[in-house]
């Protein structure tokens, strides 16, 4: 199975000390490597106001990471750990690679079209600028 890329966001309770959050992150990293995956990047967004109340709290500590894995076991285990972890209130995993693939395809498509366009516009270009027809009119 080819490698897959995931976004993983989780929200911790805002009153958890930084050390506990780091502990959660390191355990997740361990789990990922154990199962044959890899955590590409970890980005702590910090305390943010949430759009709605979760467990009667208005704020949460957001952590965002990118996970790379080649089989679903990794995500399954990571989600199980997050469910069990005490400071974690909420988490979300989103598969990323298919969207990246689509993005790539669109980009290539646009580049191809952009490469083709000059040939079409070059013959049309000379009459387009306003100065040339005026210069041509007196001579004709």
């Amino acid at each position: 199975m080819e490698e897959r890329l995931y976004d993983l966001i989780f929200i911790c309770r805002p009153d958890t000390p930084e050390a506990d959050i780091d502990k959660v992150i390191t355990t997740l990293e361990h789990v990922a490597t154990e199962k044959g995956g890899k955590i590409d990047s970890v980005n702590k967004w910090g305390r943010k106001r949430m759009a709605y109340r979760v467990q009667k709290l208005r704020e949460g500590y957001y952590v965002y990471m990118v996970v790379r894995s080649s089989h679903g076991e990794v995500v399954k285990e990571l989600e199980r750990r997050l469910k069990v972890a005490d400071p974690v209130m909420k988490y979300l995993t989103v598969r990323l690679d298919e969207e990246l693939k689509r993005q790539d395809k669109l980009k290539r498509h646009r580049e191809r079209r952009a490469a083709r366009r000059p040939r079409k516009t070059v013959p049309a270009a000379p009459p387009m600028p306003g100065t040339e027809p005026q210069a041509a009119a007196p001579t004709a």
Partner: protein
Amino acid sequence: MAEENAPQQQSYGSSGGGGPRSSGPGGGPGGRPGGPAKRGKRNFVRKKKVCRFCVDKADFIDYKKAEILAPFIQERGKILPRRMTGTCSRHQRWLTVAIKRAQNIALLPFAAEL
């Protein structure tokens, strides 16, 4: 046709263009040369809405950027329809997915709180 034109011209003098126009299809061409037809024809020049994501040439819509998605939801948290925002169908499809993901991770509200 000549017979039809004659009474219409009479009616111009008496009651204006309103009578023959409403009477039937023959009234249309009769009423056009006169002044009153202009009154009914109103041109609304509406600015054409353009898809904002097409302008930016967006290849995907990031659900993590709530500030980008925020203009596309109503105050109560509903997703705005295409006819309101002018988003093209492809981008609207991506947008709804992005908004729903953002809602799941509490970046956007499902419904405004009272």
